[in-house]
């Protein structure tokens, strides 16, 4: 198969640089960088990762550029974007 990849860009995940291709989603770029744990369950603080990858299940929610509860599996990557793990239900600022 032929994959048309976009330009290589860099964003940060918990302060560390991660390279990705434009056109990818945040969750896919992290998966390709071998990051499996994306979110944390509210009650028992269990690790959560990709389940559906198409924006249905909300098991990949993270803080993106300061906004909590972003479904990263449908959030396109952008150069310089700041992605952070979300340890709780998220706070609106």
């Amino acid at each position, binding site marked *: 198969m032929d994959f048309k990849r976009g330009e290589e860009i860099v964003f940060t995940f918990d302060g560390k640089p991660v390279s990705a291709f434009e056109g*990818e989603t945040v969750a896919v770029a992290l998966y390709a960088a071998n990051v499996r*744990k994306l979110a944390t369950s509210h009650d028992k603080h269990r*690790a*959560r990762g990709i389940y559906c*990858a198409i924006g249905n299940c909300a098991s990949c929610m993270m803080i993106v550029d300061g906004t909590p509860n972003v479904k990263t599996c449908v959030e396109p990557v952008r150069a310089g974007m700041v992605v952070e793990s979300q340890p709780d239900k998220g706070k609106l600022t």
Partner: protein
Amino acid sequence: MIHTDVLIVGAGPAGLSAAIEIGATGANVILLERSNVAGGQLIKQTHMFFGSEKQYASYRGYEISDILLKEAESMPNVCIKLQATVLAAYDDGTWTADIEGEYTKIKPKVVVVATGAAEKSLPFPGNDLPGVCGAGALQTLMNQYGVKPAENVVMLGAGNIGLIVSYQLLQANVNVLALAEGSQKIGGYLVHASKLRRLGVPIMTGYTVKEALGTTALEAVTLWKIDENWQGIAGSEITFSVDALCIAVGLSPLAELLWQAGCKMLYVPSLGGYVPYRDKSLCTSIENIFIAGDVAGVEEASAAMVEGRLAGLSAIKHLGIDLPNQSATEADYYAQLASLRNGHSGEKILSGLSKATL
């Protein structure tokens, strides 16, 4: 407030087909898709389709998506918006949407809901570990983005999705250590199952997942044999070291908007869950809301395309547009659906549909 003849929710195979059918009459269509690509789940289907020429048999899924999208895009009266999530259906007939971040109100004369379905999960200890995911998720990673989704996988579910995705995983150099299926019979087409058996994938019927093991990510999965009451049999456990456990146990209709609009709903297990009551022409209990594709009952994409056409035709009728050959076209769509639902898996669908069709 935007006024339009038709609002279509979802640009998968059903929604695109409805848009093409309605667009050909010159009526104004707004087609909203929440994702940033049109085509729904067709875009990650790398296998060839069965069916007949009319449903693009022998094309691969992503090619069909391109064909449908090009045709819909060529119609100036069809407006396709991506990153456009429909939010709500109000009692006065207003629908609201977030279109590229902008809150928008729409007043359509007719609505076709083609929102599709979501992958089901399964209850077992550890089912929330990263690495336990839907078959569609692995397809998205490997077929849409070209990312190798895992090294070693156990697949759960021997329906067509489980069988086809297992084969695609092998094509992506992923080891499929086992394909477990709770029932005693393979649910999908035997042609897919034989392909896997020839490549050495054990198909373990009568087995399910006992538990998934790992701390911050999946490390292993234990399968066990189940008895006729679907209870695990102690001592029959087999453990595999895996980095992905792929769940392919079916889909359930994404019917939230129909609930909200007040459509009469019914639980039909063989159609995947709660589905709207409808008449033969795919009209719900609300006279200007039509349905097509998996939201009407989970089936294959080929049926979704024909249902999209049929719902489109019914929407045209509701708008009061007279077409030459309307009844012949309608008869053709009914015949196509009947032929797609012919056979073993079709029986289940037909019995489900008979409960939900008034």
